[in-house]
Every structure is written in structure tokens, then in C-alpha cells.
């Protein structure tokens, strides 16, 4: 590496340059040599020769920045820096800029008939140009000239390569879809080349015309170029309908000529040894189908399907693959039409059978998909013959030597659909896999030996298991990962089968029994016939012989899967764990899984994203089998304790919540225990209470995870307070026990005993919270007290009283001395409240005080009325009702309670309140008087989310409240996204990443907007008066800070004057912040507003100046952030001129969202 270390991509550009033209280029090349480090953005360096001072200033800034970076690099990498002399010597070669390369092409194109020119092009110019993702349109004329005049094959191949790239450009910023270094804009060359004035709009039609002519050229000598021309044409973006229709025309034209000829000479092993004519035909078939594959699908077009079907019989394997891919896509939409169109091709001995032996893995994968779509199509229910035909091919592919194909078939059998995952489909998939057999069709007579061996019918499950087991023995990580993924999918289907309650799920059945009898049964693989067959088979065989039962096979497979956890690749391990989670049977012990996960999580190598993925898998598993809630919670607990710092607390909480709801009446207690076990963990402060270790060792050694654990405990405490009543099915408003005044006389111990005998779940939660309120950290104590208050308000007696007493003691600080002896001896006054929670608790106690006081008053009143035997007057009732409402308001401030049902005055008040309500026609619904409404909480609480299906005991209102609390927000989105199997967005790299996080985030954008704001303001000032060149400074500021902010690994190590560059992350131009799709994909509405307020100067200020208007003469594409793209004919407002550039404003933002910027003077027609 040491000797090649100086050979970065920039060297490639700079070494052995063609002689750089000297004239009129000195200034720009001197700049580029001093700032070689910025070469990857030649447009920044060498484009604005006309901008005089502006440019030199920017160059100076870049230079300073570059020097700083180099110095920093040198300091960081002293060893590497030693090589600098060697390197700088090498560096004396003149650097080549894009502009120079472009110029060389123009020059060499003119002399392309000379050998030396061709050599120069092939060895120097074209390869160097390849580092840019494309070339600018101004090169097109020269490329087209080369295309017509040059005869060197390699030159021509490059020409097609670059023409294709020009076509694929989407036109703005030289930043094509493909990535790579942005291509400098053509205007960069305007000053050094007379070709100026060429735009994309000019050249694309010319390129298309020429390529079209070539693609239609039937001359045999021209054959190879014809194929390349067609290929280059397919690069055009599919949004261009004109080119698209032309392409369809060419493709179908070719196919019309070559597809219909019957393929007589198709040998078994490809098309070797064919005659010239058939080879040319085959090549054309290939090129046409390859182009067709890249065109948008045209399902309504019978010719499309027809040609694709013909393609299956072509000799070229790639052509066959493309046609199968097209057909399988079409089959997913309209299986009937495809099945009919395939007709003979699919018959035994037809071309489809030949694909089974085709030497192209992806073709066979497509065949599997095609067979799957057709054999499962509802539309073909009346044609079981067709379905079984395709089914048979599908099953045969199970024996494919390639894992890729075999796994695809397994997934197809399992009923894995791409988008719409249906439980029934999955369940049927599992049934199919476990029950069906592979019976090879009668082999053609010529291969007797083979067929003898394989003809014996084999149960699918046996084949699959054997295959998977052997895959798990592979050393290849991709194979292991894929195999684990397949097992995961198996688990999903199996879970679905369990969930649906498919009959005959008995996994003790001996699978051989079916294949033994299969011959006599003569099954035609029709679903309906199976259950009976199996029963017959089961009765015939003498119950499973151990290993050959499904359960036995699964067990042995899972054994192999478990050992794969030893793989050193973390991603394989993650997939294995997911597979294990899915394969976990609800009826088996999960201790092994638990210990595997616990052991895995102790490994610090696990990245957070993967852990969260596993957590989301638990969500998915819960969704598939809700009755496993408790098991899943227990597993989730391991995550909470082992890696609190890495998991997404929101997702975990959501899992707690959903599992708690899903655990059902019987499991609720265990579920709550599983969640709150977190509270039993030792507090994160190291050292303290270390004897308090629970089942799980907590790993919160570093401060970050300690903090995360604390947050998690906080969340758990909150969760407990919020949900304990639900888990315990204990609600004040449903309580059967009357508010036991008698209970008040019990002492504390008896009260606790009474409480726990009445409702152990709630009593347990209460005890935990009490401990937290007393001994947790400050933050946890606060949450605990709040949680206790919630429980006090929601629970009936004796719980409320118990909490009331606890809070009271806590507020007075007496509790501490009672519960802990630590403070007895120290003699210090602990203050009014030893717990420090007095301030917080007081209002809570006040509410409870008021409730108890009001209850006492009510009882007194009732007695008075009873004793005096008088009716309640309306006024008295009104007073009572007002107290009720006031208390309700107060209570609602602390937690959610159903206003219609909640009775702060106790159950006895119900009757009286009811009387008053009916008398005065007061509806129960809440109005604006609700403090929750007043404080804006109601939107959270009453938001009507569809509540999950609940057991009867569940209080709907409360669940709605939860849903509002947890149901929306990012966690839910993440879970839903995961369940949908979506997500191709880029991953976030962990913060501790060596490379600083690439930042085209919203923040950056924001920062950029802010940076630009003063610039614009300055411009405005200028526009109204003086136009000083100084003002360009701000542009540079924004640019340099822009680059300064970018620090990620990159493209094309800039390789500046110091060697150390290869060590550090190197910057490349980020996708321009004004790139067109940027705004489209930007969802944050603020961005729009941001650019409104910052990007566009205020209207009045503009109008106060003396603006000149004009129109754009030509298209202009911005080459830098300070420039503005124009479309010819666009109306603009000229603000001021600087060095040959106008600062202009558009009436409305362009596709890149920009409204103002610099454009060359010559592009504007001033009116």
C-alpha cells in the first residue's frame, strides 16, 4: 500500500496529462494547481474565470481552508506525513482538470483518423473522464463526430459509454442518478472553447437521432455497434416519452424480424457452433429483450407479452432471463393472460422445461416466481391442469443446484408475498411445505439412469430441511445469512399456521408415510386431496419414527441454526436470532432462546440498528401470535437490561404496551411483572445497592448506558403507573367494594394485607412504585410519585388510602426514617421533606384530601337527609354536582379518567348525580369546561384512534388514552414500517463512527439557509444603491463554510499537497442543496417556510429598488450554489451586474427551488 499510496484517483487525472493548452487558461490552471485538493470540484475552481476578484478571493479562501486541513492531517498522521517529499515530487506533473480533458476530446476528435489520437483517447482522455459521472452536453458534438468517423473499436465503445451517460443525465447540476463526481457544467468551458452555446436540449435529440439510425442499421458489419447503440438509448430516462416511444418502435421492429423465426438449432448447451445468421439473430434478440426489460412494463399490450413469451425460446441465456423476468412481472398482475399466452411453452418438453437446465441463476429465479404466481392464481381456479403444471415445475426447482433458486422456491412455497402479506396464505404455505411431495414427472426416455434415482417421490419438507441443513454448514456468510432468512420466513408461516389454527398441524406425523403411499394414491398435487391422504397415511404408518416427523426434523434443523450463532458475522447472528424468535413455538420452553439472546447482547459489537431490528421482530412476532405476549415480554426484558443504551426506548415501550393489551386477562399479571422487573434492577449508579442484583445482570457500566437505563426505568415507572390499573382490572369506577370507611380504621399492615389479598397485581405494582418513590434516583422518584397519584386516583379502596397515607408520610419526610435506618444515627435534620418531594406531592395530596373531605361531607349529608327523612333539594343537588365537577376537573389535571364514569365522591354519589343530570338535561359528554380541553391535552387523549381488539374487561376510554399517548409518533411508524417489510432508506451511521456523519440533514440545510440570508440581504442593499465587488464575499463565506461542514469519506481523494490526505476523510461536493429532487423528497414543511423567509428577499424591498426585467435567452444550468438555473424564455428580474454575471431573481422558484442567483450576462435579454 505504501508505494501505491500516492495513487489516488486525482493522480489518475493529473498524471501524464495531455499537454494542457496554455492560451487563455493560465489563471485557471494556476488556481487548480494550487488547490489540487479541490480538484474534485473543478467547476468551483476553474469555471469562473470571468469573475475576476470573486474567483481569486474564493481561491484564496479555499487555499486557506485546504492548508488548514492539510496541517491538521499532518499533525494527526505524523508517520504518514513523512512521505510527503516523495509525493510532492510526483505531484509536479501538471494536473488535468475536467476542462482540459474536454478540450482534449475536442482536439483529438478532429484528428481521430490518426493512430496517435486514438491512443491518446483510449489511454488517457477517456479513462480519466470516467471519474466523472457524466460528461457535459458540449462534448456531445465531438463524441458524435468520433462516433461517425472513428473506426477504432475501443474508442467507439467509450463513445457509446459517454453518449449513454449524457442521455441518462437528468439535466441539472451535472448530478446524474448514478452518483459519482458531479460533472462540471458545460459553461465551465464557455471561455476556453468556441463550442459554447450547446445545451442538453440541443444535443439530446441529435444523440437520439444518431443512435436510432444506428440501432436500425441492418448492415451485418455494423452489427456490434447496433447492439451498443440500442443499449445506449435505453439509458434515457423513462420520463421522456418521445425517446420511449422511439425505443418501443425500434425494439418491436427488431423483434418482428428476428423473434418469429423458429429456433431449430437450439442445442442443449447453448448456441455454440451455430451459423452466422442464427448467431446474429440471437444477438439481436438479446439486445432487443435487454432493452425491453428496461422499458416500462406495458401490461395492456398483447405484443409485449407475446414477444416476452417468445423470448423464453431464444438461444441467448440473458435474453431468456430478461423475458422470464418480464413475464413473471406480468404474471403477478394478470396470471390468466400469461398462463394462456405461455400455452405450449409450458407443456412438458416445452421451452419452460429447458430453463430448468439453463445456466443462468437469475433466469431460474424468475422461473420460480413465474410458476408461483400462476400456480397460486385465483383467476386460474378453473384450470387446475395449468396450475399443477406450473406447480410441478416450481417443485422441481427445489432440487436446483443453486441455493439462490432453491431458497426462492422455498419462499414461494411458504407463501411469502412481496407486499400484501396474508396470514391465510402464509398458513397454507406452511401446510403445503409440510404436507406435499415432490413427484418428478416421467423423465424423457433418453435419460434413464438419472430418473431411476430421482423418481421416488420426496416430501417437500424433507428436501427443504436437508438443503437448509447443508447450507448452514457452509462457510460463506451470504449463504448462512440467506439460509437463516429462509428459516425466519418458515417461522413466519408456521406462526401463521398456528394462529389460523390449521387442522392437522400435528408435527408428529411421519412425513415418509405420505411418500410411501403416494404412488398408490396417485396424487395430482391438488390441495384438496391432501388432508385425506395424510390421514390415510398416518393410520397406515406406525406413528412417527423419531427423526422423520416434522417435529423431529425441525428440532434437528434448529439445532444447526442455533450453532450458527457462533458465526463471527454480526448480521448473520442477528438473522439467526430473528429466525429463532420466529421458530419459537408457543408451547415450548424458551429458556434456550433467552440464554442465547442474553449471551449475544453481552457482546458490545452489536450495533444499535440491528438490536432494534430484533426488537421490531418481537413486535412482528407478537402481531402474528398475540398469545405469546408474555414470552416476548420476557425476551424484551433482556434487551432492556442488557443494552439499555442501544435500544429505542419508544419501540420498547410500544412493545410493552401492545403485549400488555395482548396478554389477555390471564396473562396480564405476568406481563406487568415482566415489564416492571426493570424496576428491580440495581440503580445505574455503580456501587450503590450492588447486592440487589436480580435475575439479569445489568450492564450499565458506562455512563451512556447508565443514563439510558435510568431513562428506561423512568419509562417503566411511568408505564406501571399508567397501566397497573388496567393490568389489575381495578378501577375506582368499577369497584364492587364500597368505599370502606371501616377500612380507614385498619392499621397500615392490615391494610396492605387486605389489599394484596384483594388484588395481588395492583398490590405488587404499588409496592414497587413505593420503593421507587423512596429509593430511586431523583428523576425516578418524581415519576414514581406521579405514577402513584395516578393509581390513587384510578383505584378504589383500600389502594387509594394506602397510597394516600404513603404520600402523606413521604411529604412529611417521616417515611425515610421509618423505612430506612441509615438516617437515624446521623442526627441531621432532613428538612421539612426528607425526600425532597414535598413541593411535588403537596398538590397531589391536596386533591386526595379534597376528595376524601368531599366524600365525608357527602356521607354526612346523606345521613342528615336519611335521619331527617327529607328529599334532596335542587340546590343541594346542584352544590353536590358542582363539587363533583370541580373534583373531576382537578383529577383530570393529574391523569386521564373517563369523565362519564368517574365518581370522585365515591359510588354512593352516583345516584344523586344522576338525578341532577337527568333533571337538568346535562349530557355526560365533556365540554369546554374540561380542563383537559383547556390545556390542550384533550387532543391527545380524545383523539379517536381505532382501539385494538380488546378483551371485554378492557376500558375503551383508557385504551384510547394509551393509544393517544403511545400509539402515534415515530415508534409506531417504525414498527409499522418494519411490519410492512419496507425500508430502503439509507442507514444512519453510529455516532462513534470514525467518519463524521455526512450531513445533508435538515440542520445543514437550515444552517445553509441562514448563511445565505445575510448574503441576500446584502444583495438587496446593494441593489438599491452601490454595487461594490466586496459584496461577493458573502458568497464565498457560504461556499467555504459549506465545504468546511462537509467531512465524509469520499469520492476521489482530493490528494492535496500533503500525503496525509489518504488518511482523513475527504470531502466531495455534497449533493447540491438546491438539487431538484431534494425539495420533492423533503418532507419537513418548515423547509418550505424556511426558504420562503430566508431565500426570498421581501417583496417590498425589491420593489423599492429599480429593477430591470429581462428574459432568459438560453437554458442555463447552475454550476455552483451561488448560480441560478434558467430555462430559455423564463422571465427574470435583474438585480445587479458583477463581472459579467447578473444577479437575477425569478418570478417563481425553479425545479431546484431556487429563486435568485448569478447567471452569465450573455444569457439574459434585457428588456
Amino acid at each position: 500500500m505504501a508505494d501505491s499510496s500516492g495513487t489516488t484517483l486525482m493522480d489518475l487525472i493529473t498524471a501524464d496529462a495531455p499537454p494542457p493548452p496554455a492560451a487563455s487558461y493560465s489563471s485557471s490552471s494556476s488556481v487548480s494547481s494550487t488547490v489540487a485538493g479541490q480538484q474534485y470540484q473543478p467547476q468551483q475552481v476553474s469555471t469562473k474565470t470571468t469573475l475576476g476578484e470573486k474567483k481569486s478571493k474564493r481561491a484564496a479562501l479555499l487555499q486557506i481552508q485546504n492548508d488548514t486541513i492539510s496541517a491538521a492531517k499532518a499533525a494527526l498522521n505524523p508517520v504518514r506525513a513523512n512521505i510527503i517529499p516523495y509525493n510532492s515530487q510526483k505531484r509536479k506533473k501538471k494536473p488535468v482538470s475536467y476542462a482540459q480533458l474536454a478540450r482534449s476530446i475536442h482536439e483529438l476528435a478532429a484528428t481521430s483518423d490518426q493512430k496517435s489520437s486514438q491512443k491518446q483517447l483510449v489511454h488517457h482522455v477517456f479513462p480519466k473522464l470516467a471519474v466523472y459521472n457524466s460528461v457535459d452536453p458540449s462534448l456531445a458534438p465531438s463524441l458524435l463526430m468520433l462516433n461517425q468517423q472513428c473506426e477504432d473499436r475501443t474508442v467507439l465503445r467509450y463513445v457509446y459509454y459517454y453518449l449513454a451517460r449524457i442521455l441518462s443525465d437528468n439535466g441539472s447540476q451535472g448530478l446524474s442518478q448514478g452518483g459519482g463526481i458531479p460533472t462540471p457544467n458545460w459553461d465551465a468551458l464557455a471561455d476556453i472553447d468556441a463550442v459554447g452555446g450547446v445545451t442538453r436540449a440541443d444535443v439530446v435529440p441529435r444523440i437520439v437521432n444518431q443512435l436510432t439510425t444506428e440501432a436500425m442499421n441492418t448492415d451485418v458489419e455494423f452489427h456490434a455497434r447496433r447492439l451498443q447503440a440500442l443499449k445506449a438509448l435505453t439509458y434515457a430516462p423513462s420520463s421522456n416519452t418521445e425517446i420511449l416511444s422511439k425505443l418501443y418502435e425500434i425494439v418491436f421492429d427488431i423483434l418482428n424480424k428476428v423473434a418469429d423465426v423458429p429456433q431449430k438449432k437450439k442445442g442443449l448447451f447453448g448456441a455454440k457452433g451455430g451459423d452466422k445468421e442464427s448467431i446474429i439473430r440471437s444477438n439481436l434478440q438479446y439486445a432487443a429483450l435487454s432493452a425491453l426489460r428496461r422499458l416500462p412494463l406495458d401490461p395492456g399490450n398483447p405484443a409485449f407479452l407475446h414477444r416476452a413469451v417468445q423470448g423464453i425460446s431464444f438461444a441467448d441465456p440473458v435474453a431468456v432471463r430478461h423475458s422470464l423476468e418480464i413475464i413473471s412481472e406480468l404474471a403477478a398482475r394478470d396470471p390468466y393472460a400469461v398462463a394462456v399466452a405461455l400455452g405450449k411453452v409450458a407443456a412438458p418438453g416445452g421451452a419452460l422445461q429447458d430453463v430448468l437446465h439453463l445456466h443462468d441463476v437469475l433466469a431460474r429465479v424468475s422461473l420460480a416466481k413465474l410458476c408461483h404466481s400462476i400456480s397460486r392464481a385465483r383467476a386460474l381456479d378453473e384450470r387446475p391442469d395449468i396450475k399443477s403444471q406450473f406447480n410441478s415445475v416450481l417443485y422441481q426447482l427445489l432440487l436446483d443446484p443453486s441455493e439462490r433458486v432453491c431458497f426462492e422456491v422455498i419462499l414461494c412455497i411458504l407463501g411469502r408475498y412481496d407486499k400484501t402479506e396474508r396470514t391465510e396464505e402464509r398458513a397454507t404455505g406452511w401446510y403445503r411445505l409440510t404436507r406435499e411431495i415432490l413427484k418428478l414427472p416421467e423423465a424423457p426416455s433418453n435419460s434413464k439412469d438419472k430418473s431411476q434415482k430421482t423418481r421416488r417421490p420426496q416430501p417437500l419438507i424433507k428436501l427443504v430441511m436437508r438443503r437448509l441443513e447443508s447450507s448452514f454448514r457452509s462457510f460463506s456468510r451470504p449463504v448462512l445469512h440467506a439460509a437463516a432468512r429462509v428459516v425466519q420466513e418458515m417461522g413466519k408461516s408456521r406462526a401463521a399456521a398456528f394462529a389460523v389454527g390449521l387442522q392437522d398441524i400435528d408435527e408428529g406425523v411421519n412425513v415418509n408415510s405420505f411418500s410411501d403411499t403416494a404412488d398408490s394414491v396417485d396424487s395430482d398435487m391438488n390441495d384438496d386431496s391432501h388432508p385425506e391422504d395424510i390421514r390415510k397415511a398416518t393410520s397406515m404408518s406406525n406413528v412417527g419414527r423419531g427423526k422423520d416427523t416434522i417435529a423431529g426434523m425441525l428440532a434437528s434443523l434448529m439445532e444447526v441454526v442455533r450453532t450458527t450463532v457462533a458465526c463471527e458475522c454480526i448480521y448473520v447472528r442477528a438473522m439467526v436470532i430473528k429466525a429463532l424468535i420466529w421458530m419459537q413455538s408457543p408451547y415450548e420452553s424458551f429458556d434456550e432462546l433467552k440464554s442465547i439472546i442474553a449471551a449475544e447482547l453481552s457482546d458490545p459489537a452489536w450495533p444499535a440498528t440491528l438490536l432494534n431490528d430484533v426488537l421490531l421482530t418481537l413486535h412482528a412476532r407478537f402481531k402474528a401470535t398475540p398469545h405469546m405476549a408474555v414470552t416476548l415480554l420476557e425476551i424484551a426484558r433482556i434487551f432492556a437490561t442488557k443494552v439499555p443504551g442501544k435500544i429505542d426506548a419508544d419501540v420498547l415501550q410500544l412493545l410493552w404496551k401492545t403485549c400488555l393489551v395482548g396478554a389477555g386477562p390471564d396473562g396480564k399479571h405476568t406481563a406487568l411483572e415482566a415489564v416492571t422487573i426493570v424496576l428491580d434492577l440495581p440503580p445505574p449508579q455503580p456501587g450503590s445497592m450492588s447486592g440487589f442484583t436480580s435475575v439479569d445482570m445489568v450492564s450499565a457500566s458506562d455512563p451512556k448506558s447508565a443514563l439510558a437505563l435510568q431513562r428506561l426505568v423512568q419509562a417503566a415507572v411511568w408505564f406501571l403507573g399508567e397501566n397497573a390499573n388496567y393490568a389489575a382490572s381495578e378501577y375506582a369506577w368499577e369497584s364492587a367494594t364500597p368505599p370502606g370507611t371501616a377500612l380507614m380504621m385498619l392499621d397500615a399492615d392490615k391494610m396492605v394485607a387486605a389489599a394484596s389479598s384483594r388484588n395481588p397485581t395492583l398490590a405488587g405494582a404499588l409496592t414497587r412504585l413505593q420503593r421507587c418513590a423512596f429509593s430511586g434516583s431523583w428523576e425516578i422518584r418524581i415519576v414514581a410519585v406521579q405514577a402513584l397519584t395516578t393509581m390513587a386516583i384510578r383505584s378504589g379502596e383500600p389502594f387509594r388510602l394506602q397510597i394516600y397515607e404513603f404520600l402523606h408520610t413521604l411529604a412529611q419526610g417521616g417515611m425515610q426514617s421509618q423505612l430506612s435506618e441509615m438516617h437515624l444515627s446521623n442526627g441531621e435534620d432532613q428538612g421539612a421533606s426528607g425526600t425532597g418531594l414535598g413541593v411535588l406531592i403537596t398538590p397531589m395530596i391536596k386533591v386526595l384530601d379534597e376528595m376524601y373531605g368531599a366524600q365525608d361531607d357527602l356521607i354526612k349529608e346523606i345521613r342528615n337527609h336519611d335521619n331527617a327523612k327529607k328529599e334532596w333539594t335542587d340546590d343541594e343537588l346542584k352544590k353536590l354536582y358542582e363539587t363533583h365537577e370541580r373534583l373531576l376537573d382537578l383529577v383530570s389535571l393529574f391523569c386521564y379518567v373517563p369523565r362519564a364514569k368517574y365518581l370522585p365522591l365515591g359510588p354512593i354519589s352516583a345516584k344523586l348525580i344522576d338525578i341532577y343530570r337527568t333533571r337538568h338535561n346535562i349530557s355526560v359528554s365533556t365540554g369546554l369546561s374540561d380542563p383537559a380541553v383547556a390545556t390542550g391535552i384533550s387532543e391527545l387523549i380524545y383523539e379517536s384512534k381505532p382501539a385494538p381488539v380488546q378483551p371485554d374487561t378492557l376500558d375503551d376510554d383508557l385504551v384510547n388514552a394509551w393509544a393517544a399517548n403511545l400509539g402515534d409518533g415515530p415508534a409506531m411508524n417504525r414498527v409499522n414500517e418494519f411490519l410492512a417489510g419496507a425500508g430502503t432508506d439509507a442507514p444512519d451511521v453510529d455516532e462513534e463512527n470514525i467518519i463524521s456523519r455526512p450531513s445533508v440533514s435538515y440542520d445543514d440545510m437550515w444552517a445553509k439557509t441562514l448563511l445565505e440570508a445575510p448574503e441576500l440581504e446584502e444583495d438587496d442593499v446593494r441593489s438599491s444603491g452601490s454595487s461594490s465587488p466586496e459584496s461577493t464575499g458573502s458568497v464565498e463565506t457560504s461556499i467555504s463554510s459549506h465545504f468546511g461542514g462537509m467531512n465524509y469519506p469520499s469520492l476521489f481523494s482530493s490528494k492535496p499537497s500533503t500525503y496525509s490526505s489518504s488518511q482523513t476523510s475527504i470531502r466531495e461536493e455534497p449533493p447540491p442543496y438546491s438539487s431538484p429532487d431534494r425539495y420533492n423528497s423533503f418532507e419537513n414543511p418548515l423547509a418550505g417556510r424556511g426558504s420562503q423567509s430566508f431565500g426570498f428577499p421581501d417583496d417590498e424591498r425589491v420593489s423599492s429598488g429599480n429593477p430591470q426585467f429581462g428574459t432568459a435567452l438560453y437554458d442555463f444550468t447552475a454550476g455552483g450554489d451561488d448560480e441560478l438555473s434558467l430555462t430559455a424564455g423564463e422571465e427574470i428580474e435583474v438585480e445587479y451586474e458583477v463581472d459579467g454575471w447578473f444577479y437575477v431573481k425569478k418570478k417563481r422558484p425553479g425545479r431546484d427551488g431556487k429563486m435568485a442567483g448569478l447567471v452569465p450576462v450573455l444569457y439574459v435579454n434585457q428588456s
Partner: protein
Amino acid sequence: MLMAVLISNSVGNILVERFNGVPSEERLHWRSFLVKLGADNLQRASNEELFVASHKSVHIVYTVLGDVCIYIVGKDAYDELALAEVMFVITSLIKDACKKSPTERLFLDKYGKICLCLDEIFWKGIVENTNKERIKRLTRLKPPGEF
């Protein structure tokens, strides 16, 4: 869909990149993610040893060959195994182009040729040719099936 093919040198500078269907603002994330994967795992890896990773529904296969690291990102039909096949084609073509396991210098010397090879292996996110001889013919502007 073949979402991306990236080739970087051993210190994480990207030499070649081809994206398909990846929004420009996400490319930076992909670059750093992949380069970090390489930095974490490829240091001690032997030539052409395949590594695997995944992110949501996207598969990643990567390897090291001489001084260059190659990363392939795909989804849907292009799972780990399909990507491994593509990787095999790419590595063997790079080896052929450089005549041996490439140093960075060698790789850059053959840069143009490698770009042309990649252009024949896949384009528009779809894998095209996987046969080495065929690819070589095509890069020399000869038809796939010769007569």
C-alpha cells in the same frame, strides 16, 4: 433492484460508485455506512472473502480485493446470494483487467476498462451479463455471440 455498487480504496476513499434509485441525499449515508462496514471488518479479511450485511429490506455484500474494497447493495430479487454472484463477476473481471490482485495504482491504471466492464455487468439497476468472456467481448465492441 441493484441499488448501488461502490468501490473504495483501503482507507475508504471512494473510487467508483454507481447508484440506482437512491435519492441523492441518501447517498452520503450509504457511503459512510458502507465505508464504516469496510473499516470495521475488512482490515483482516482475506481476498475475496465475502461479507454480508443488511439494513431493513436491503441486502449488502462486500469484499476486499487487493487494495480495493467492493460493496454491492441490492433489494428484492437481488438478495445476498444474487449479490454474491454479481460480486464474483466483478472481482474476477477486475482481477483480469489488472492481471492480478489489484493495487490501487493498478486499479486506477485500468480505471476506464473497469468502468466499461461494470457498464456491461449491470445498468439501470438490473444485472445484465455475468459471463466473463461475453463481457470482455462487449467491452471491445464485439457482439455477445461471435461468428
